[in-house]
């Protein structure tokens, strides 16, 4: 499977020692998914940026229209409403999706998936395949047009019971689903 940039070693033997020296002394034939630095993560499909942009643009339209209507009534001095609105819309549509795209990433390990996201509020989640209950691959209309998909892993835990990974190439998402599913089967039979 070439799509996985990182493979970690099978780590099913013993409890990992807790003191740092012992962890550092482990054989370094490929780091575990959770030990990768943020810039070593697999990035999402660039089409994800476009999908967010279009979504945000649709969201912004009513506000801009409302702003234009207020301008048309000329109660306030010219451009007092529409200028800041346009500026915010430009930031939301052009700047933010790139930053969000850059902040996201994932790492597929041999027995676990790590998902990182968030600019201000960073969240870094690892789900071991052995705890996955079922897997969804979803595509909205926009996502279908750009051939990307959202992979969702459901676990039995109540905190973060389902973990979403949007912006994967559809084919990649399906491959990942098969990979995770086959892993679950292998473990239980």
């Amino acid at each position: 499977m070439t799509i996985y940039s990182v493979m970690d070693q099978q780590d099913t033997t013993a409890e990992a020692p807790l003191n740092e020296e012992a962890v550092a002394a482990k054989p370094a034939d490929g780091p575990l998914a959770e030990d990768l630095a943020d810039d070593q993560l697999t990035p999402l499909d660039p089409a994800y940026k476009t999908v967010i942009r279009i979504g945000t643009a649709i969201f912004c339209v009513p506000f801009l229209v409302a702003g234009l209507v207020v301008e048309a009534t000329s109660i306030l001095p010219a451009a007092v409403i529409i200028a800041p609105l346009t500026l915010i819309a430009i930031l939301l549509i052009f700047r933010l999706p790139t930053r969000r795209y850059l902040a996201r990433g994932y790492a597929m390990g041999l027995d676990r998936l790590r998902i990182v996201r968030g600019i201000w509020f960073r969240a870094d989640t690892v789900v071991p395949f052995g705890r996955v209950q079922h897997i969804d691959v979803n595509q909205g209309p926009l996502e279908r047009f750009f051939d990307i998909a959202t992979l969702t892993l459901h676990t039995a835990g109540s905190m973060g019971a389902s973990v979403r990974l949007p912006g994967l190439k559809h084919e990649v998402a399906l491959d990942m689903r098969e990979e995770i599913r086959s892993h679950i089967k292998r473990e239980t039979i």
Partner: protein
Amino acid sequence: MSEQVANSGQPSNAALHTDPKSFLIQGLAGLRNAIFPVVAVFFAMRDTGTLALFTALAAGIAIVGIGAGGAYLRWRKFTYEINVEDIRVESGIISRIARSVPFERIQDVSLEQTLIPRLFGLVTVKFETGSGGGEDITLAYLSEDEGERLRELVREQCDGASLIAHRPDDVESEVVGAPAAKRAEPSTLLFAMDRRRLFTFGIFEFSLAVFAVLAGLAQYADWFVDFEIWDPDLWRDVASEQSGWIAGLGQMGQIIGAIGSVIGLILVGSVTGLFRVFLRDWNFRLEETPRGFRRRRGLLTRTDVVMPVHRVQAIQVKTGWLRYRFGWRALKFVSLAQDLGAANHDVAPFAKIEEIKPIVRAAGFEPASPTLDWRLTEPRYWLDTTILEGGILLLVAIVVAIVFSPWFALIPVAIAGVIALANWYGYKVHAHAVDEEQLLVRKGYFSPDLQIASRVKLHSVNISQGPIAQRRGYANLHLGLAGGTMSISGLPLARAHELRRAILASIAAKDFSEIYRAPEPRLAA
């Protein structure tokens, strides 16, 4: 349509009705429902004299009649069936509902007796499936024998089902109990509360909820009585009368009066607590049976719940700031069949730590040993929290000082001081530790609450950081725990990663299906 559904099942058992007396009980409930409308009708028409009485009576009879008729029809149309693989229930007068619950989905079977059914010797049998929202089966009411027989039957069926191979995608396909030692029912008493203990517990369960109830009643009284309870003038008169009277007693009298009302409040609060505790926890017994923990309690409503040991995800040892000073704690189980807060898994609501330890061990956990390496959280986290909360309060104080007077500004400043003190204690109390198999988290401000989770029974690990945390180098660790939540706030980032690494290694070593398999019964050995 529904007949076909019923017939398609295994014809091992005929469709059964609930006990005929249950229709009677529902009729009694109808009587209770009728009281209020009857009174309302009577008051609405009281000017018309005898007519009012007749109308009220007629309305009452109509309500009871319709209720009883409905209850009878519902009883007629409600059937249940125990098949080889599942329980089926059919109900509904106009639209029929046929529900089938496979045995392997049944998490707990509980018997419940409220006051009136108890007088008739009836029980409510509930089959909990752990599906979160109301998808359970409730049979109300069955005779006590039938309830017990059903519970036995379901357990046997579940044991039989355990021989069928597990399906990997089966979340709750766990089975209750263990095949061996089924009939003998050996059990050991783990914990019980006598009257003396209940009394102490009641005192600590001090509650002023009774005043809320009284206020509610007063609002009702408002409807019926020509007494304007919310009329300010009335109360002003009463108050001025009273204060005049109190003023007459002099300063000494006022002080005595104040002390008297405080004592009164304490008395009322304690009596309320005693009432609640005696009603809920009367004759509390926790036993260990081969099938799991069995808890029985209740004075008027007696409940009997069995919790399989292997379904316990984590344990919680809780306490309060006052009872902690006297060494009292409560033990709770976080169970797989628990949607947050709904199911009650108190196993020892009021016990000394020495009484709790054996129960914790019986559940497969190890109580916190003194050799554990407890680690405190990051001091910066507490500092930042205090600065943030205190800062907001200081802003409030400045505004208050400008708008009102500097003296009033002392109030938010004092609150800020209390918060700072609480955070100082919080820093000392909040801690965590790991051993080979468990993760222990201690939380609280003026008293420590402890949560112990089994490392392999966690489902995911998440590290999150807000904008401040990113700059200051600490993080929150959230752990996926079925039926509950577990998180540690304000960990040093390196420690968060270290914990995650260790926990993930434990999780990856065992698959989900392995950890929820019923273990060998401890007592059979």
